[in-house]
């Protein structure tokens, strides 16, 4: 709250300064970047924003948003674009591109990796989209409080769905993505078949049937900061979480939360530029800078999310304690990546069904 007041006050002061001193305004550019808040935004401020401001003098303001395209659509349709760059997920990036809410990104202008490999080959597959460039890969995992369970905590994804063995409430993000994948994985569908099964009406029914078995035990969360709080307050015995939030809570708040890596669903976050921004060139320059090798590697200092460039992975020193928590650090159990194309095509239908299922 205070941060927001500060930033809007800054914006007012900034706007006044620009109005009064038109000669300086050309040099004093500023960008507004919308991201998910908390430890994640903080890691971006440290690894992208500060070095970029130091290099170019462009001021960067951070705002939090909820990741739904409606917020972007409202700005574009009203012709009052307030943000320049947004951090979003791949399904939203694809849909936003199709709906004409995001600027196209010229992939040929992305800088090569620190080791000289061209960008097209340096990025891991699926990170260069028509309107967005991947910056990190995070993982959706189950977390629990070790203080409660000791050595007898949940070990596999099936335990999340086993209310008899692990009684108590579970936290889940109020979103069909990850929720439906997990239901199928826990119901015995192989990692490689999840989207094939989910693409059929029978598969969707199967997922919801599995979810029915724990429906009354679910506490639904909507913001990434909630899972650590739900665990800490004892409201839930285990929860779906973005893995970085839990590692952050363990470090900063001295919690003893543990992660179940089995069944992890990896999802990329991408940077995109909002259509109609007045600072298009600066925004493009910033996105190119942020998605280059060194800033991506630096980000791992602040949060254990994996960089999207192979060359960045090589730049993370072995001494960095976050290395062990990167989603691809060789964790035990099943691991899968989200299928953004699938979610773009079926997201609306599945969301409708999910809303109706929730409300019943």
């Amino acid at each position, binding site marked *: 709250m205070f941060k927001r007041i500060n930033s809007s006050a800054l914006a007012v002061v900034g706007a006044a300064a620009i109005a009064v001193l038109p000669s300086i305004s050309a040099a004093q550019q500023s960008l507004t970047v919308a991201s998910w808040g908390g430890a994640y935004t903080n890691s971006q401020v440290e690894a992208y924003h500060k070095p970029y401001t130091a290099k170019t003098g462009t001021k960067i303001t951070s705002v939090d948003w909820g990741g739904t*395209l409606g917020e972007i659509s409202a700005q574009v349709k009203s012709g009052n674009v307030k943000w320049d760059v947004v951090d979003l997920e791949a399904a939203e990036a694809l849909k936003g591109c*199709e709906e004409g809410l995001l600027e196209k990104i010229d992939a040929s202008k992305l800088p090569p990796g620190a080791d000289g490999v061209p960008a097209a080959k340096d990025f891991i597959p699926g990170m260069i989209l028509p309107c967005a460039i991947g910056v990190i890969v995070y993982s959706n995992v189950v977390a629990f409080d070790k203080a409660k369970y000791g050595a007898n905590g949940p070990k596999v994804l099936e335990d999340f769905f086993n209310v008899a063995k692990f009684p108590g409430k579970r936290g889940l993000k109020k979103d069909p993505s990850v929720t439906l994948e997990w239901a199928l994985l826990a119901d015995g569908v192989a990692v490689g078949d999840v989207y094939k099964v989910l693409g059929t009406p029978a598969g969707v029914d199967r997922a919801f049937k599995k979810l029915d078995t724990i429906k009354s035990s679910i506490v639904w969360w909507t913001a990434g900061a909630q899972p650590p709080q739900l665990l800490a307050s004892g*409201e839930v015995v285990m929860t779906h979480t973005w893995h970085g939030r839990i590692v952050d809570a363990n470090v900063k708040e001295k919690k003893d939360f543990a992660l179940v890596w089995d069944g992890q669903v990896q999802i990329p976050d991408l940077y995109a530029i909002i259509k109609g921004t007045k600072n298009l060139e600066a925004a493009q320059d910033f996105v190119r800078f942020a998605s280059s090798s060194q800033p991506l590697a630096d980000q791992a200092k602040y949060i254990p999310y994996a960089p999207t460039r192979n060359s960045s992975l090589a730049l993370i020193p072995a001494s960095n304690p976050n290395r062990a928590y990167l989603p691809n650090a060789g964790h035990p159990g099943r691991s899968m990546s989200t299928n953004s194309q699938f979610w773009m095509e079926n997201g609306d239908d599945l969301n409708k069904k999910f809303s*109706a299922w929730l*409300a019943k």
Partner: protein
Amino acid sequence: MDSTASLTQRLRKAERRGQMRAYALIAPLFIFVLLSFLLPLGTVLFNSLYDPVVPQGLPRTAQALAQWNGPRDQIPPEPVYAALAQDLKEAVQAQSHGAIANRLNIEESGLRTIFMRAARRVSAQEEGPWAPFFEAADPAWAQPGIWGTIRNLASPTHSLFYLSALDSKRNQDGSVGPQPEDQRIHVTIYLRTLGVAFTVTLMCILLGFPLAYLLAHLRDKTANLLLILVLLPFWTSLLVRTTAWMVMLQKEGVLNSFLQFLHVISEPLNLVHNRFGVVVAMTHILLPFMVLPMYSVMRQIPVSYVRAARSLGAGPFTAFIRVYLPQCIPGLGAGALLVFILALGYYITPALLGGSTDQMISYFVADNMGRSLNWGLASALAAILLGAVLLLYAVYDRLVGANNLKLG
């Protein structure tokens, strides 16, 4: 004669000047109401009826379909396919095909893929015949169903959003019928919204009436002090009060710990993420809206009336029911109406303290705005809620009389 006429004229002039001054004085208020209330409200109503995506994106197709105007169980002739091909080419050029596909998909699940498949191929082909081209892209194009959906959407103004908000839809054959079973939720949600608002109003009356009575019958000094205690939470942010209830009611929260400490319960109770938490918090938040109008009305009821009733032989109960209560009705009515209408639109409290089956209609308005980008449906849901409130007010006016309202 002459002087009378000029006097009338001057009088009229002065009157007009006075009127102009009065208008000038209310102009800021008028502009404020126009910009902050009527304009957004108008936009919502407009959005719920106006939907130009398909007629603007596929203008030739809409026209060709209207010209053909064949029965709904037949597929259209070649010129319609050709018109669609032309429209599609332009849409791909203008990058508007995604928005059209999403609009079709809102009406009928699965149309998005079918439409995009044709859009992806259309630029590669120069000349017709187009019917076989579309059929090769997806066999659904050779079925009448998809054409029915396009015809339903071909006019820029339609009632599809309202149908959808009431769990109905216009079928591909043009008839109106219910939504598929697994997508019928809105009527349930409206009833739930009314139910929660009704429960909260009832709780507020039960708690607020004795409180207002007490306040109205205490000495001024004590009453003022207690009134501040009522108003203090009223001045606190809604979000703060909601999260405070979360702290109070959660598993290891204040209330559960206290009850466990007293050995009243052995296992913590589920007090939050269910209907109980929602009703408790909403009652607390809305209570001042009930107490304040009742308090101001009760203060003005002369004590002598009840005394007179008692001295004429009425028992305390009869005196209360027949003499005191009827005089409280204006305050009670105003408070109840205020609480009920405010409760109908609650969003953040059910979102934080409720479970998935405690969400009210505003949650679905927000969901359609933000996630599904279905602003038309969101507008229709909001407009129906507004209609319900106006209806309620009209019923109140009939039963109690709106002139009787006393807000403080």
